[in-house]
């Protein structure tokens, strides 16, 4: 932690900002992928578990 902060402190503010923004964007993309994967997993699992029975329910 300290090392990063020291390195960050020595680097130009713009560099640090760019690095942080890039990291934040990568993390956002990764979280987006994970959420999408989670939705797909639940969707596919519902079909695998229930099959055509997914339609059999009281309306």
């Amino acid at each position, binding site marked *: *932690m*300290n*090392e*990063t*902060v*020291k390195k*960050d*402190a020595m680097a130009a503010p713009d560099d640090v900002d760019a*690095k*942080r*923004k890039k*990291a*934040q964007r*990568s*993390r956002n*993309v*990764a979280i987006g992928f994970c959420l999408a994967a*989670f939705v797909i*997993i*639940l969707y*596919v*699992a519902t079909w*695998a*578990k229930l099959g055509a029975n997914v339609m059999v329910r009281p309306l």
Partner: protein
Amino acid sequence: MNTSIEKESDFTVSTAMPADYFELLKPGVMRLVVFTAIAGLVIAPGQLHPVLALISILCIAIGAGASGALNMWYDSDIDAVMTRTAKRPIPSGRVSRSEALVFGLVLSFFSIFTLGVIANWLSAGLLAFTIFFYAVVYSMWLKRSTPQNIVIGGAAGAFPPMIGWAVVTNSVTIESLVLFAIIFIWTPPHFWALALFKSGDYASVGIPMMPNVAGNRSTQNQILAYSLLLAPIGFLPYWMGFVGLTYGVVSAVLGAAFVWFAFRCWQMDSDDKIMKPAKRLFAFSILYLFALFGVMILEVAAPNLIARFV
């Protein structure tokens, strides 16, 4: 100056990349967990939709990874001192402790919840207990307080095949307990072999590993004792009849080899600086477990695949 920067840094955006978070999951440990969980799932009697099997394995892997992240959160102070762990994401400054904690907790919740919904709540309960056991019982309590830490803590690593079995059968049976016992008894000789040639590392952070507390000679004796116990337990699945002859032969040969490596380690001079026999035993112990569970999977899966495609 530094303090103000550190204080400031608490409020700035983190520079952690997704790969750093992935490292928190301990991918190496996850590989073994996935492998043994697949074995439990494959050899369990009963039918399971392949998609559900795949998702269940993913849940077990992520649950195991989450417990790894919680372990790294709690152990970051000692990880920073030991050479083996100093480059982990928290001690190297790439991920903060609080980020790792939240990451571990969120993944724990989602993996347990998903497994419960997809498979059954018994396997989800076992996964929850495994995470709790590794993060709380082992990391927070046993690891720093007793040389028996990895003996009892080894249970956390032994649960995955039992979870895999429970995913299919919704039960805990004697067969799944045998799979549990194989990993449980395998853990002490595996970790103590490592602890023998890494004892300086553990001593420097005050972790009471067996060689530091009871001495190398006592550790070597115990490694041999556990190995003598492991060889017949490794053979039990064949003897009980829930795996085939190939496994029986492989487990007998590898079990004998394990005892041989443990014997060579036992013969080693306690003051040996290089500790080659201990290093060999450590390397072989990994091969042993992969081979045993690999043969289990192949023996059941291969005939099915051949029948399907030939």
